[in-house]
């Protein structure tokens, strides 16, 4: 093989690798931010529970409606501020309106991982007195996505 033929093959290979890298990147960009957040929580659950079979709308609903009684007395449940129906708007204790939690009503929700984590951190502490697990977070989001 002549040296220049060899370098031709190499550069073709480089082009192919580069193109697939770009395409793979584009693929990631096309997946919705909300699905990425769910996938992230799923990956975290799988580390601790190898037999994990996916998030559950029912478990998410139960969590949303529950009154654990271990958090701050003024906020016994998610429903204290978000109302019993995620499709309805809520109200903070200071009287400010909260957009509905259901994705069908508030399509911009759960697309910013930092923001999602911030509100889980605060509100899980307020309602349950502890940090929520990745399983709880994923179930909760799944419930809201399916509303």
């Amino acid at each position, binding site marked *: 093989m002549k040296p220049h033929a060899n370098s031709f093959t190499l550069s073709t290979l480089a082009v192919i690798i580069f193109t697939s890298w770009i395409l793979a990147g584009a693929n990631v960009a096309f997946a919705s931010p909300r699905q990425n957040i769910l996938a992230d929580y799923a990956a975290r659950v799988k580390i601790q529970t190898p037999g994990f079979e996916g998030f559950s709308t029912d478990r998410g609903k139960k969590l949303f409606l529950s009154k654990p009684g271990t958090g*701050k007395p*003024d906020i016994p449940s998610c429903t204290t501020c978000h109302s019993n129906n995620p499709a309805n708007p809520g*109200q903070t204790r200071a*009287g400010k309106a909260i957009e509905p939690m259901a994705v069908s009503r508030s399509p911009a929700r759960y697309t910013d991982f930092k923001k999602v984590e911030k509100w889980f951190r*605060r509100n899980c502490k*307020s309602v349950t007195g502890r940090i929520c697990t990745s399983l709880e977070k994923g179930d909760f989001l799944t419930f809201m996505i399916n509303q």
Partner: protein
Amino acid sequence: MPKTPIKYLVAIFAIFLTGTTVQADERYDPVRNQVVIDECGACHMVFQPQMLPKKSWVKIMNDLSDHFGEDASLDASSVKLITKYLQENSADSGWRDGKFMRGLSKNSTPLRITKTPYWVREHNEEVPQRAWSDPKVKSRANCPACHRRANSGDYDDD
């Protein structure tokens, strides 16, 4: 008749003067910092910092994990920025004290604007009890329920 126009002028000027002072009575600088607007405004009205003294804001910002019975904890850099803004614009930040310092004893650190002597005096006689129990009001912290332009610092509509 040279006397009458002067009389009128004086009268008009007097009305104009009274008018402006009354109108400008309950105005506060609206919050202009976007971090303060976004973070504080996520749960409640963005209260103008001129409504509490420095030490109150510092105490509130130091205890965000139990913010009036709720976890409102924030990242350290936001806490620092917001605390600075609130201090720099507090009731006792100007060359002379703002209205909300009136009647406040030196050793008291009110954590609620609605507990300051000035706020209490302004609302107690004027606002009937049924207004507070209206579900649309819900909380004494919900200024815009009655003061429609509260967010822009205008409380002259009472």
